[in-house]
């Protein structure tokens, strides 16, 4: 397989990469930047939602309720207001994301045998924050109500602890603290692999055409496949180094576990690279300039990012988009890399995804190879 011509092309390509420090810096800096941005900013962990409290009761029972809210770190009691208007103004301005209204007779009702109602107001303009806050607010109140109930029972001379007729014991597997970085970091690895291999391959091939060096290459006895492989291999190596870079950073900065076998991770990442390289090559057969190549790749990049489940869950998408997602290789690789890192499963649990990736990789590559011509016209 490896012959002299191929080695010469690879050596030449490496010299070119090496002598272009700006690109080299970008290649290694972009993953770090993307990882930091995604890891820290794209987090869906909701903590310390600013809460405005309109406590009309001011009694000890109301204080206990507020302590319960304080104890869970979902909310931060940021404002203590004296009227509903004041509360509304704070939510309007966005200073408070939620409001809690305790009625004047709260303590009386709680200490007697009555049933009290508290009001919880939510700013629904950001659905992610609102839905998490909503369930947190309900959960805290229910816990508190259960406690109050058992207090009442013990006062009536009955056993202090109550057996509830139904209890849900939840167990969150793989990521018990539900840290979003565990979800984001594998996604970053996947998008970086795809972006880098496709863009770098496309521009590396088109650069030869743009600068006219292709004309000299064509006249040599180099075969098309040698040129293709020789152009791609250096970028495969860069991509593998990037994978390791992001894995190391992810586990260092975000404590993302690497539970699967590293060999399997690299092997299946390699399988996924076929699709990225194929798209890059295909783009290079369409584009005449490096900018055109870049734009062509970007056209495939946007749907890949949005319809792969990288940022938004596929289950929540309309049926049409879900169907489209089946032709996006990134979709399968995301499942693979997330499962390998976080769940630590083996290849047998991922058969469908591996098969899909293999089909896409081979298909795109074949198409690209058929279109790839070592000629000027």
């Amino acid at each position: 397989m490896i012959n002299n011509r191929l080695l010469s092309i690879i050596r030449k390509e490496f010299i070119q990469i090496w002598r272009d420090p700006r690109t080299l810096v970008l290649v290694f800096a972009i993953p770090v930047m993307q990882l930091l941005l995604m890891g820290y900013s794209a987090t869906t962990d909701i903590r310390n939602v600013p809460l405005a409290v309109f406590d009309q009761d001011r009694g000890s029972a109301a204080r206990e309720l507020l302590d319960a809210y304080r104890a869970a770190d979902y909310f931060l009691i940021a404002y203590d207001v004296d009227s509903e208007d004041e509360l509304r103004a704070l939510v309007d301005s966005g200073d408070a994301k939620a409001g809690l209204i305790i009625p004047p007779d709260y303590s009386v009702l709680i200490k007697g045998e009555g049933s009290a109602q508290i009001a919880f107001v939510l700013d629904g303009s950001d659905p992610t924050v609102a839905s998490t806050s909503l369930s947190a607010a309900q959960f805290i109140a229910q816990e508190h109500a259960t406690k109050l109930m058992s207090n009442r029972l013990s006062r009536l001379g009955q056993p202090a602890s109550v057996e509830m007729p139904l209890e849900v014991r939840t167990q969150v597997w793989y990521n018990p603290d539900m840290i979003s970085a565990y979800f984001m970091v594998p996604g970053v690895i996947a998008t970086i692999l795809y972006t880098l291999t496709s863009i770098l391959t496309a521009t590396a091939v088109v650069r030869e055409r743009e600068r006219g060096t292709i004309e000299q290459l064509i006249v040599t006895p180099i075969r098309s496949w040698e040129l293709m492989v020789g152009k791609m291999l250096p970028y495969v190596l860069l991509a593998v180094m990037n994978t390791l870079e992001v894995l190391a950073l992810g586990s260092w900065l975000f404590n993302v576990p690497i539970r699967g076998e590293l060999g399997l991770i690299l092997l299946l990442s390699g399988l996924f690279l076929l699709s990225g390289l194929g798209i890059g090559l295909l783009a290079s057969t369409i584009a005449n300039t490096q900018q055109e190549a870049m734009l062509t790749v970007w056209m495939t990049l946007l749907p890949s990012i949005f319809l792969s489940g990288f940022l938004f869950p596929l289950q929540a998408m309309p049926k049409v988009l879900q169907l489209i997602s089946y032709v996006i290789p990134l979709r399968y690789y995301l499942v693979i890399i997330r499962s390998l890192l976080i769940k630590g499963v083996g290849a047998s649990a991922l058969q469908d995804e591996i098969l899909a990736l293999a089909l896409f990789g081979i298909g795109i590559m074949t198409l690209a190879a058929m279109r790839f011509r070592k000629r000027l016209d």
Partner: protein
Amino acid sequence: METLIEARNLRKTFGDNVAVDGLSLSVSEGEIFALVGPDGAGKTTAIRLLCGAMLADEGHVFLAGFDLHKQTEQAKAQIGYLPQRFSLYGELTVVENLRFFAEVRGLPGKDWLPRSQEILEFVGLEEFANRRADKLSGGMKQKLGLAAALVHRPQILLLDEPTVGVDAATRQAFWRLIISLLVQGVAVLISTPYMDEASRCSQVGFMYGGRLLVEGPPGEIVRRLEGRVVELVGGPRRLVESLARSDPQVEDVQMFGDRMHLRVIAGSSRRVINRLKASLQKEGVVIDRLKPVAPGLEDVFIELLEIVE
């Protein structure tokens, strides 16, 4: 003598535009063939078809006996090609470029190193071996291009306007190199806009509209206008030119610096000279020279262009 480059009935179209239209030519070892013709005549496309950078719609190319279409690899291994545009790697040094092209063209093992040194000395770039190619001047880039085209000792050299934009000294050096290759038996095909270069070649082909209008040794080509060119030097220039043009037997007047070439109807040069002598003297023109001269390639090509256009 063995024929090294042979083209038979090459045709190439781009959409409706016929770039090369039934081109046939052959160049033997030790021969140099010059393709000349106006811009857009199809010279560059012709060379690209000959080296396999483009595929002809019709016709055949044989390089050192190998069919370019069927025995592509063997055929291409015989070629050294210098395209019009600089087409080596700017990020690579001079010697890295040579190594790359030596290796991909199948120069065995470690041969690239002594061969690179040899070829760099040959083109006079040995001092710049470790300079990046994009840091070379225009003339040096062309020399490097030639070196890269020759590094694998090809039998066939295809040069597309290699001396355009190159200073006079480099141009001379370039030609000395090419001539020394001819002595070694290389067949060279060159396209050039310069008639003085074409006249040094063993064969000249005048290309127009994708075909060869006239082809042959320069000495034979100029015979078309034997006895039909009169050289005139005198001033004031404008007056001289208008008087010359008004002569009924003068077909065309071309300026070559301060000289004027009058193309006259066959067999009329004596009469034209006598008539002009009289009319010019009557107008008080100082005549420094007025005599028949041997026609040059340029005279012939201007005449050919007038016929076809």
